Each structure stands twice: as structure tokens, then as C-alpha cells.
């Protein structure tokens, strides 16, 4: 879907427009940084013009004054209610990078992903993003952003590497943690060439949040009654989603394009009508 790729590219550039930062490894410090972007974009990326919502959640959990961030959760809930994982499909730079990698002509893994792996991202959300930072703050320990520090490959790719390349002082501080993060990133980038958007399917805590709201989102993909159950939509779905209200659906719109009868359509959700799945 070429048009979506243009939107994804534009979104990635817009969220990382502080080009000067790439030159000298500095960070943008303007007022944009008090806002969150809806996708996963590390705010320590030299180009980042706004903050990462997942990073912000952990940072606020570490802050004794605030703890729970009403501001960030409110923003995420609002965004999710508008489009569910539409953000994943159109605006997330890291999702875009994985999709580009999938276009590399390497053999694709055909076996379906075990369901337990799909649920792992909820554990990542509950333990690394919310659990550990909050528990440490509550028990008076030194809280830290566990997801950012131990796992997030977007941070390594967008922040760690560019900053290390551009800022020689930071290079002096690299240690074993960086080796681990780099391995995680490289492993993921490789898998992304064989499997469609692996991070989004298995590990992304932000995707997990939006996934929960797929069934309620105002913008969604509807299956009309003249669907003939050919199953083309299911076969073409990179996320192996059962239907567009499935938590796995990233609203990329591929099924809309592929439906031979035009039964799949983008729509404003009317009332609470359940979505008919694409097969009889």
C-alpha cells in the first residue's frame, strides 16, 4: 500500500525533525517535548521533537510527586479510542522500519505465531513499563525506566546509536548494557526481515495498550453483509488478525484493498455493532 507508506515516512520525519541533533548529538529542548507522540519514538533521539509516551509513563512512575500520569494515560486512552491500533499502522516510526525490513527479499517464516507470544506484550507493559518503576518508587527505592533501559530497541536504534555516533563524550560511557541492547536490536531487525513486524506482535507495550481499545475505536474497518467468506482478507493479513477488531489488527488497510467484493470498508463505528469476521 504505497499511500500508507508515504504517511508512515512523513510521520517518522515529522516526529524526528530536529535534524541538527543528528549532527552534534544534542537533544531538542523546546516546548514540543512536553507533548507525547502517539507512536514509539524515543525522546532521546537527537531528532525527536516530542516525548515518547511509554518513556513518559515510566518517568512519571518514578516521580514521587506524580506516580500515575493522568496526562499520558489520558492521551493514550483518547488516541486509542479514536483509532485503536491505527497509530501502529500509520504513525509509528518503529513499525515503519520493521515493515521496510520485511520487504528485504529473505525467506519468510510461514508458520503461525504461537498465541502465547502475542500475549507477551501485555506482560511487558505490566511488568517493565508499569510494575517495576512503580514498585520501586512505592518502596522508596531508586526507580528506573525498566522497559527503556533493558528492552526498547527503538531507543537503541533512534537514540543510542545516533547519539553515540555524534557525541564522542557519550562514547566513553558505553558498557555491557549497551552490548545487550544492541543484541536485542540486531536480533529484532533480523527477525523483522523474516516475520512481519515482530516487535509489534510480541513485545510492544504501546501496541498492547492500543490493542485493548481496538474493539471500541471510533474509526475502524467494517465487514459488510455481502461478504462471501472467501478468506482473502485473512490470508493477506500480516498480523494474523482474526478480524479488524481483533487486538492484533494494526488497521493497515490491506484487507480493505484485497477484498474481491469490496465488503471490507473503513468506517465510523455506528453504535456498538459487532464486526462480522471475514469468513463464514
Amino acid at each position, binding site marked *: 500500500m504505497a499511500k500508507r507508506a508515504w504517511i508512515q515516512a512523513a510521520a517518522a520525519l*515529522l516526529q524526528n525533525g530536529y535534524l541538527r541533533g543528528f549532527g552534534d548529538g544534542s537533544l531538542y529542548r523546546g516546548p514540543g517535548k512536553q507533548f507525547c507522540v502517539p507512536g514509539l519514538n524515543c525522546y532521546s533521539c537527537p531528532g525527536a521533537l516530542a516525548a515518547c509516551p511509554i518513556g513518559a509513563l515510566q518517568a512519571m512512575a518514578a516521580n514521587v510527586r506524580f506516580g500515575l500520569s493522568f496526562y499520558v494515560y489520558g492521551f493514550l486512552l483518547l488516541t486509542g479510542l479514536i483509532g485503536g491500533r491505527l497509530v501502529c499502522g500509520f504513525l509509528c516510526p518503529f513499525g515503519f522500519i520493521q515493515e521496510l525490513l520485511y520487504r528485504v527479499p529473505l525467506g519468510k517464516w510461514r508458520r503461525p505465531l504461537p498465541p502465547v507470544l502475542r500475549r507477551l506484550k501485555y506482560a511487558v507493559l505490566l511488568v517493565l513499563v508499569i510494575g517495576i518503576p512503580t514498585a520501586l518508587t512505592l518502596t522508596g527505592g531508586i526507580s528506573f525506566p525498566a522497559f527503556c533501559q533493558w528492552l526498547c530497541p527503538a531507543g537503541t536504534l533512534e537514540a543510542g546509536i545516533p547519539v553515540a555516533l555524534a557525541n564522542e563524550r557519550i562514547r566513553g560511557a558505553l558498557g555491557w548494557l549497551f552490548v545487550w541492547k544492541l543484541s536485542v536490536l540486531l536480533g529484532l531487525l533480523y527477525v523483522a526481515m523474516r516475520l512481519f513486524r515482530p516487535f509489534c506482535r510480541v513485545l510492544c507495550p504501546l501496541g498492547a495498550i492500543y490493542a485493548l481499545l481496538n474493539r471500541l475505536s471510533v474509526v475502524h474497518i467494517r465487514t459488510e453483509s455481502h461478504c462471501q467468506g472467501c478468506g482473502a482478507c485473512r490470508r493477506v493479513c500480516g498480523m494474523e488478525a482474526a478480524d479488524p477488531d481483533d487486538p492484533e489488527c494494526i488497521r493497515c488497510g490491506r484487507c480493505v484493498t484485497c477484498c474481491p467484493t469490496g465488503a471490507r470498508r473503513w468506517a465510523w463505528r455506528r453504535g456498538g455493532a459487532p464486526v462480522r469476521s471475514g469468513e463464514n
Partner: protein
Amino acid sequence: MNKILLRAAVLLLLTLLAGCAAGTVGNAGGSPGAEAGGSPGGAEAAIGLAVGQTAPDFTLTLNGGGEVTLSQLRGQPVFLNLFTTWCPPCREEIPALQKIYEEYGDRVSIIGVSVTESADVVAEFIAASGVGYPVALDPDGIVAADYDVQFIPQSWVLDSDGVIADYIPGGTDEAGILAALAGVLP
């Protein structure tokens, strides 16, 4: 492409665009500021951020009252620790700094500088943390800009003439601090 999708995407993008446009208009800091006034003449090393250069001078309010001026600390080596209260590695190295302060405080000036934080947040933190060494406040990030601070923690070791002798990026521990001070301690 379907109208609804197009509208939704345009709406979301416009929001982003608005945020970015507002953002690029104002960016403060991030520029290396190594020109902190002229040297008072004589054989003093040039002011800058490299080893062998004189560290940029500053005057800041201290937590708990009073002021500190870097150049007035000459005569003794200085260990300058730039930190924030929320940064985990910054907090982890505080006990080590405190220990060094207690053992060597008469021979070296240990100064903490809290960058971009407000006075009350720092006061609260210091009261709870048992820090005894002087902590200076840099709420406007002036020292942060002069020292081109992009990340924390970081520590600067100055000799008794205020010349930069060593630099530690990131967190450190007691051994690291002592190793850095080895060159400047009498």
C-alpha cells in the same frame, strides 16, 4: 483511498505538524558555550571544555542558602558532579560522593550541580538523601549550556588552578572517583 481514513490520518498528522511547528520555533540550549567571558590576562589556559583548558566559571545559589563561584574555589582541586534528582545512575553514585566528601573534603571541593531542576524539588531530595556536600542549583540550565550538558550524570575534575584534568561521562563509583582525583590530589 477511503475518505474516512484520509480524514482521520490528516487530522492526526495535522496535530503532529502543529506540535512540531510550535516546537521548532523555540529551542533553548544545546549549543556548546565555551566562551564564558575573557580570561583575566596572564598565563591562564584558554577557557573551554577540553582537558587542559580552564573550566567555564559560574556563580550559583546553593541549596540551603548562600552562593558558590567556581573560580573562587581555586587553591584546591574540584570534583564537579552534574546531576538531576530523578536520574537513577545519578542517585546511585551519591553515596560514593558522600563518602569521598567525608574522607577528603578538606583537600578537595566536592560540588554537586542539579541541572534544570527547581529549588524546592532539589531541597526535598537533599533533605531525604543525607547529602552533606554542597549542592548548587542551576534551574535555568545556564551551567548546563556552558558545559554542553546533553546527558547526566557527568563529572568534571579540576586541578587547583581550575584547569580541567579529567572528565567522567555517566555514573561512577568510589574507585572511579578516586582514580579521577589521583592526578590532582596533593
